[in-house]
């Protein structure tokens, strides 16, 4: 008995099969439409840029006390238009190693900057603090600044668009 007062007859086999068919058609068409769209949307999960090496600076530009920031430009890939990935790289010599680390704060992704008067790297967004070698020194971030895979070629320092674990040997002078 519906609210309007008429009765829907008991479900016959014919009626049941028709209902099943309606559900089947709806499901079939939905899968046909959604399948390609889901693939289309999630395809970017497979995007991994190819390994690229770019020059950062010459070795005599590298200091032992102050991290110098350089702009590196990687060729953009996997996009509908040509573009460049610009990244800030801090470079400093620590002992006999050269460290090349990114300027992207590990908390929210803002660009950290070197404050000479504090001798620290500071993030302007939420006050993440790193020492001159990019190690976490305070504030809300939970990790140190990421190290770039790097190597020395002739008198130049090169970095790749790959992040490596801290503690790995980066480059010998």
């Amino acid at each position, binding site marked *: 008995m519906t609210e309007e007062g008429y009765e829907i007859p008991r479900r016959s086999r014919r009626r049941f099969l028709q209902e099943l068919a309606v559900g089947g058609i709806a499901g079939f068409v939905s899968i046909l439409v959604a399948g390609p769209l889901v693939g289309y949307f999630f395809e970017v999960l497979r995007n991994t840029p190819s390994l690229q090496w770019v020059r950062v600076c010459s070795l005599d530009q590298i200091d032992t006390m102050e991290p110098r920031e350089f702009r590196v430009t990687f060729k*953009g890939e996997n996009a509908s238009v040509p573009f460049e990935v610009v990244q800030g790289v801090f470079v400093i010599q620590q002992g006999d190693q050269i460290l090349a680390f990114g300027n992207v704060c590990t908390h929210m992704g803002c660009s950290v900057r070197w404050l000479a008067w504090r001798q620290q790297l500071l993030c302007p967004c939420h006050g993440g603090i790193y020492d001159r070698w990019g190690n976490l020194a305070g504030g*809300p971030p939970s990790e140190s600044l990421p190290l770039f895979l790097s190597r020395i070629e002739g008198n130049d320092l090169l970095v790749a668009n790959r992040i490596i674990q801290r503690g790995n040997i980066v480059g010998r002078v």
Partner: protein
Amino acid sequence: MIFGTVVEATESTVDLIGRELEPVYNWLDQRLPLTRTKERLLFDPVPERGGWWYTFGAAIYTLLIIQFITGIFLLMYYVPSWNEARVSILYIQNEVFLGWLVRGLHYWGQVALVLLVGIHMLRTFFSGAYKAPRELTWMLGVTLLILMVATAFTGGCIRWDQSGYFDVVVGTTIAGWTPIIGPFLAKLWRGGDVITPLTLTRTFTFHVWLLPALLFIIATIHVGLVILQGQFGSWINYEPEPPGTPPPNEDERAALEKVKREVLDPRSRKVNVPSRATWFFPYHVFKEGVVSMVVFVGVFIAAFFFQVPVEEPVDPTTTTYAPTSMWFFLFEDQCSLSSLGHG
């Protein structure tokens, strides 16, 4: 006397138009349930007390439609492209005739919308209007709040100047902090591991189609539920009349009669007869119109006098630009100082 003459003339003109249009109306009414819809929607009895507090929803809906219209017009010049997005906004701002005003209306409309949604929610909360049977309306309303700030946020991102770029950076990073699925969410949104042109086109798609379409559909269901279950779910309307209240006039008596009949009808979803009622049209529509107009005039004045800035071109290596949160996310920005990242 002169006023009397004017009124008479106006009335007779209205009658004349009405008579001329009557056959058209009748023709349509035979094919569409015009009269029934009109009686259900326009001559809907609404509680008489506290009416001004129940006008913000209408102002929000009006502003939403203005956002759609200004947004469509901005799209005639905006280009969601890695190198040209900011340039195209500068063009709208500086070259297009009245482009600065259209962009200003879209920007300040958003500010007013988020503010009004806050007021609307506070009113609903403090009047107890979320209680049974209106829980679904409240839930959809919370969904609308989330969609509203998401739309405002993505709109700020696609300016693709320094502020827009860092909004995307921080937004995708926060998405990346989601437990378990975070990295996938961030990558899906960015279209890769880093911010790329795909990030811009995806954010743009969310801003101009996905989120507004969801907003419009859910907002319409939200309003539909309000009409279905009877407006003003406020306790104040069901309390006895305070002493010294003037007696109801003819309209109010008729409206009260109608709502009593509706509540008794088993097919109706309305509950509770308010102690005083009046017609939705024109009495409540008038109040909604006044408030919507005041809000829009405020938006217009803000757009006229306060230009919306376009910041420097995107530079991730900046050492001078300090990104700031959008105003409605400042609370979240402060929360992230202590909570996020230590997980």
